[in-house]
C-alpha cells in the first residue's frame, strides 16, 4: 500500500512543479520587476515598448487559407519557455490555432523586445543586467503586451489582406 503512496508523492511533486512553475515565474518576475521599477522611480505601465522586431514566418500578404481567414480569437499568443523545471521566457510566439492545424506565424525573441528606457538605464549603469532581464521578462509576458501583439499581428494579416 505504501508503494502506492510513493507513486502519489512522485506524481504530485512532478505535476505540481510542472503546473506551478510558469505561474510562479510570472508572479515572481512581476513582483521583482515592480520592485526594480520602484527603485528607479518608473511606472511599468508608462514604459513604452516596441515589438518592431517581431519576425513573421509567413509572407504577408499570405495565401494560406487558415491564416488569411483567421479571426482574432484564433490567434494564440503565448510565451515560449526553454525549460519546464527552470522556466525562463525566451520570446513570444504567435500561431493560428484552427480545428485542423496549429500554424506558427510569428515570433518575437526577448532580446529583440525593445524597451529603450531599460537600455538607457543599463547603459548608464542605473540597473544591472539581471534587473534588466527581470523587467524585460515581466513586460513581455504581461497580458497587456500579449494582447497588443495579438492586435498587431491581426492588424498585419487583416491590413495586408485588404491591400491585396
Amino acid at each position, binding site marked *: 500500500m505504501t508503494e502506492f503512496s510513493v507513486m502519489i508523492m512522485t506524481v*504530485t*511533486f512532478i505535476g*505540481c512543479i510542472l503546473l*506551478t512553475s510558469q505561474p*510562479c515565474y510570472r508572479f515572481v518576475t512581476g513582483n521583482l520587476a515592480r520592485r526594480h521599477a520602484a527603485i528607479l522611480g518608473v511606472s511599468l505601465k508608462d514604459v*513604452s515598448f516596441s515589438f518592431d522586431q517581431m519576425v513573421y514566418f509567413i509572407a504577408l500578404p499570405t495565401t494560406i487559407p487558415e491564416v488569411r481567414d483567421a479571426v482574432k480569437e484564433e490567434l494564440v499568443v503565448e510565451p515560449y519557455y526553454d525549460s519546464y523545471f527552470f522556466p525562463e521566457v525566451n520570446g513570444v510566439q504567435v500561431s493560428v490555432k484552427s480545428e485542423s492545424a496549429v500554424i506558427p506565424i510569428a515570433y518575437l*525573441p526577448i532580446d529583440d523586445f*525593445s524597451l529603450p528606457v531599460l*537600455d538607457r538605464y543599463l547603459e548608464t549603469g542605473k540597473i544591472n543586467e539581471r534587473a534588466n532581464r527581470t523587467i524585460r521578462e515581466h513586460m513581455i509576458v504581461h497580458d497587456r503586451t500579449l494582447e497588443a501583439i495579438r492586435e498587431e499581428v491581426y492588424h498585419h494579416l487583416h491590413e495586408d489582406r485588404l491591400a491585396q
Partner: protein
Amino acid sequence: MVYGLLIGGIVLITIILNILRLMTTPALNRWLLAGTSSLVVMWHGVLFDFYDLHWSVLLLIMTGLVCFHWKGMITAILVGWLLVYSQSGTLSFPLLLSYIFFGLGAALLFGYVKQLKREQSARLRMLTASSRQLNVFREVSFTMQDTLDPDRLLQTILTSVTAGHGLGFNRSIIFFADLEKDSIYGVMGTGPMNPEDGFQIWEEITRQHIDLQGLIDEKETDSTHDEQLNERIRKMTIPFHGNHLFKQTLDSGRPLHVYASITDDPVLRMLHTDLQMDECTIFPLHHQGIPYGLLVIDNVVNKKPITPQKIDSVRPIAEQASLALHQTMLYQRIETLALRDGLTRLKNHRSFEQDLDVLFRECATDELSLIVMDIDHFKHFNDTNGHLAGNELLTRLASVIRRSVPDEQMAYRFGGEEFVVLLPQYDEVEAGQVAETIRTAVLKTNFLNGERQPGGQLTLSFGVASKHTLQEQTLEQLIECADQALYTAKSKGKNQVCRWEGVPL
C-alpha cells in the same frame, strides 16, 4: 486522511519553494529544487515511517539528474543508497545496481528530451534569423523596384539595415566612390552620433510605433534624427587610391569586420574620433566590377557584437543595393543624355518644355517669370572665328549663366545661341534684376575673340515676361511675350534687358 495530508503537504512545500527558488540565482534555484524534493521525501517518510524509503530514493535520483545532470544523479544514487543502508542496516548492492540502471535510463530519457528541446530552440533561432532576412529583403526589394530616385534608394538601404523592422543595427553610413575625382566621400547616414542620442531616437520611435515603410517615408520628409550625423559625414572625403581599409574592401569585394578603436587605419581612426565608432563592418557596394561605394554599419548604442551571422544577413541587402544603385546611375545617365544639352551641359529645350508645363500645372496661382536671351551678332562671331570657337563661346557662356542665376537647374539652352531661365516666385521686376546680373556678368567675362565683336565685346540681349502680366495664363503666351520683349531689346540697340509690360500682342 493520510493521503490528503501527503498531497496537501507536497503541494504546499512545492509551491512555497517554487516561489522562493525563482527569486534566487540560477545556481541556487537548482539547489532549492533538489532541496524541495528532499523535503517531499522526508514528508512522505514522516507520514509513512520511512517504510518505503528505497522507493522514494528514485525521486531524489530524478531530481538530482534534472538539477545537476550526471553529477547530481550519481550523488543522489550514492546518498540515497547510504540513506537506505542507514535505515535498514544492510548494504544492498543489487539495490545500488537498480539505482544505477534507473539513473541511466532516466538520464537517457532526460538527455533525449533535452536534446529535442535544444534542437527545437536552435531551429527556432535559425528560422527567426532566416525569416527576418527574407522579410527585410522582400520589403527592400519592393521599395527599390519602386523608385529610381537615388535619395529614396539610399534611405531605403540605410533604414532597412538599421530599423527594428529591419536588421536592427544601430547606425549605417553610405560612402560613394568617385574614380574620376579620385575620392570616396560620405553621402548619407542614419543613426545617432552617440549612445545618448540613440536612446532618445529609440524612445521616440517606440512611442510613435513607426514601421519600416513609415521610417523610409519619414526620412524622405524629415531627417531631423540624422541631421547631425549627415552633416558630419558629408564633410568626409578620402582619396580613393590611398592605402586604407575602404580601398582594400572595395578591391577584395568582401565585407570587412574591424575594430576602429584599435586599428592604425587613418579612415577608421577618423570614424572612431568623429563618430565614436568602434566595432564595425564595411560592405563593398559594387556591381559587375564597378565600385559604387561602401556601406558601414555599427552598434554604437547597445554595443551588441556584430556576429558572422549578422554580417551574412546584410550581404544580400548590400548586393541588392549595389544592383539598384547601378540601375539608378544608368537611368540618371540616360536621363542626362535625353534632357541635357550635350555641348553646354545645361538642360535642353525638351527639358524646358517639361519643367514649364509642370510649373504651370502645379503652381497655377504662383508667380512665374521667364528670361529669354540671345547672343548679339553671333553669326558674325561664327563667321569671323569659326564654328569651333562658336561652340567654345557657348560653353563658356553657359557657365557664366549657371553662376548668375538663383537655381542653375532652371537655366536652359533654348536652341542655337538662345538661352532661357525660368524663375518661379519671381515677378517681372525681380526677373529683370536677374537678367541684369547675367548681362553684367557677361560684360565682365573675357571671352576668347570677344573683342572682335561689333562694339569690342560680346553682349547679350534679354527679354523678360511674367505670368501675372499676361492676358491669357498660358505657357505659350509666356514664351511669346518674353520673345517679343527680346526683339524689342534687339531693336533698341542690343545689350540690354527689356520687359514685357503687359501690352497685348
